């Protein structure tokens, strides 16, 4: 899949997205980014979704609106109307057809880390799929279930260690995560209270999930998701998974931690995943703009390492070289306009563009630009 275009889906009037190796979506609240990302999953993984819902005992009674409620969540039953059209590359996507699946592939190819990720842990443990309300979004339930299985099936041989975890993530990456997010604390599985729970081990004290910092609580489901994408042994990626979607990766994180997370995202792309991010953080677009500008000016990969204060070793140099020389980037703005929500390709991110959607990155830096203009005028007219 290289392109999805659609008309009339929920509040989305017209969307046209050409994917890069990293695709970034920006736009104000309620501009339909999340609906679009869930649609991408539906398009790619509909057989797996239907099989999963049926396996867990859900039944939409052949009613498309019921299925949409089960998938997108309560209140979304009417999202697909008679004018809705979805085109995937050159093929029309027929929603009615997917509800009577043929015996085709039921593998999952897109892993979505939802914005509601902090909700997937209850009592310091990932909730199972069936723990959620019927009308909770499918992508939240599935992410939660993936984490539960990771903890209960895949982490059984790790002797209680969750972070750092041997054999999944490179030591170089673990070191920068440790430095910027956990401050040398360890995350581990605790079974002392006759119930499994995730705790933060800071030597003398073991802190339960609820009293971690907000950023650490946000980061743990994200980290577990990243671990899920980095299988142990020599395999670079999950065999069937080609796409990774991360909604608002910056939530609750200090800019230093966001930088670390961005490096981790680049490592996922280096491993061969295509990454789609929705964000409200200018820092993420700063990274994309920097990579594009460095590539255009034929700068060496070490410049990219300098941006993140990374050591110039073999591990990070290989990532920087691959990202700079072999990967493509696209950025789209989900804009409220008179006709509804339309997308605009702002991939150049050119600060000199006369189109403010491009120069101010879909509104993410509009405030800073306005502050500069007004303060400049106020100060310099006095001098």
């Amino acid at each position, binding site marked *: 899949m290289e392109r999805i275009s659609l008309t009339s889906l929920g509040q989305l009037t017209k969307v046209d997205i050409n994917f890069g190796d990293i695709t970034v979506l920006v736009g104000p609240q309620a501009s339909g980014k999340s609906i679009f990302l869930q649609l991408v999953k539906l398009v790619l993984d509909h057989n797996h979704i239907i099989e999963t819902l049926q396996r867990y005992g859900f039944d939409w009674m052949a009613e498309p609106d019921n299925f949409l409620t089960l998938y997108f969540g309560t209140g979304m039953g009417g999202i697909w109307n008679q004018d809705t059209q979805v085109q995937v590359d050159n093929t029309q996507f027929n929603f009615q057809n997917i509800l009577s699946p043929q015996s085709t592939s039921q593998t999952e190819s897109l892993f979505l880390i939802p914005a509601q990720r902090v909700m997937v842990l209850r009592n310091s443990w990932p909730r199972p799929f069936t723990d959620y309300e019927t009308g909770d979004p499918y992508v939240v339930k599935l992410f939660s279930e993936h984490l539960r299985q990771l903890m209960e099936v895949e982490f059984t041989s790790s002797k209680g260690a969750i972070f750092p975890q041997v054999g999944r993530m490179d030591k170089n990456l673990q070191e920068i995560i440790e430095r910027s997010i956990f401050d040398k604390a360890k995350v581990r599985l605790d079974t002392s209270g006759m119930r499994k729970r995730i705790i933060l081990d800071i030597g003398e004290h073991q802190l339960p999930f609820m009293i971690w910092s907000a950023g650490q609580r946000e980061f743990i489901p994200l980290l577990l998701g990243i671990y899920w994408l980095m299988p142990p042994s020599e395999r670079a990626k999950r065999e069937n998974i080609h796409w990774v979607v991360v909604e608002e990766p910056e939530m609750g994180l200090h800019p230093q931690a966001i930088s670390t997370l961005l490096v981790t995202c680049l490592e996922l792309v280096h491993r061969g995943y295509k990454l789609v991010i929705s964000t409200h953080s*200018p820092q993420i677009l700063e990274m994309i*703009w920097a990579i594009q*500008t460095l590539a255009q000016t034929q700068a060496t990969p070490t410049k990219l390492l300098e941006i993140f204060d990374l050591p110039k070793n073999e591990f990070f140099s290989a990532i920087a070289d691959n990202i700079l020389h072999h990967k493509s980037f696209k950025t789209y703005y989900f804009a409220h306009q008179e006709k509804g929500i339309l997308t605009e390709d702002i991939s150049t991110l050119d*600060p*000199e563009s006369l189109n403010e959607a491009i*120069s*101010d990155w879909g509104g993410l*830096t509009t405030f*800073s*630009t306005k*502050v*500069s*203009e007004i*303060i*400049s*005028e106020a*100060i*310099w007219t006095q*001098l």
Partner: protein
Amino acid sequence: MNFLDAVHNTPDITNCLQAGLKALGRYSTRITTSQPSLLEGSVDLDNCLKAKYQNAPRWDYALSHKSSVYYIEVHPASTSQVKVVIAKLNWLKGWLRHTALVNLKGQSSYHWISTDKVTISKRSKYSRILAKSGVKYPVRVLHLG
């Protein structure tokens, strides 16, 4: 070739080389260094080139420290002046192409010293326009590394 040789071999400015930071006059206090003995000289480009390029958007100064050449523009740092400074930079680069200083390109950097308060947010598009042009973000005082 070093900075002094390059200046001597550039007829437009041969006679304008001054010791240390002297060419910067009252703005010399806006430059700091922990190694002043390694200052190799400075040139007041604006004054020196005024007669020959009367109406051009001339750049202000050039100096050399530890074999690195610093091109310095002293200018109000407000959003409306970003374009003005970039126009000066473009003129400077065009002029440099016809001088012996072009051979020192690898060691050169472009700096904006603000005459007063800097009123450009580091996250605004103006900051990115500057970065893209190659001019460093404006400072009140420039420290030579």
